[in-house]
């Protein structure tokens, strides 16, 4: 694997931070929808809601990790198929009359 230049590393780091922010934003929306009951008699979170929020964050991060692994393996699986497709591309044979 080629070594990344410092510029690329920096860009990758910034990208990761941005994606973490996006993840955080989505998680906030998702867990709010799942756990916070839209009944506003009280300004404090109930015990049930608090417990739910704790578990929601744990579950969301676990889903994030599992799907990440699955997507990585799917992408790696598709790569040899894609390479084979490019090798067998019929448009490449044009011009090599035998």
């Amino acid at each position, binding site marked *: 694997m080629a070594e990344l230049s410092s510029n690329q590393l920096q860009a990758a780091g910034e990208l990761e931070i941005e994606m973490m922010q996006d993840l955080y934003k989505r998680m906030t929306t998702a867990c709010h929808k799942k756990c916070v009951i839209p009944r506003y008699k009280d300004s404090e979170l109930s015990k049930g809601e608090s417990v739910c929020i704790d578990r929601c964050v744990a579950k969301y991060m676990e*889903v994030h990790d599992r*799907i990440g692994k699955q997507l990585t393996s799917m992408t790696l699986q598709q790569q040899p198929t894609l390479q084979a497709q490019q090798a067998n591309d019929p448009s490449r044979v044009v011009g090599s009359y035998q």
Partner: protein
Amino acid sequence: MAAEEHIFREFLETYNRIVEECFNRCVYTFNYRYLLDNEVDCASRCTSRYVNYNQRLAMNFAKIQSKKMIDAQEQAEAQQDPSLMVNTQIADTSKPS
């Protein structure tokens, strides 16, 4: 390099979107801190289906876009020289079948 980064960025955005969608659709009990087996299976099926959905959508989009481009090209050529259309038709009919 910019194009590669653009593609990678899009991949990561799709990844985050998948996580959100599949979490919303598959995880609905918060009795435990860990994921239940059915939730894990649902999430993996949800991911595969979303990826297939994305590919199919992209295929249809590309088809329609290319057809639009071809139509626009033909229109532009016809506007530039309307007599071109008539000439080509005559030339075609004179070709031996």
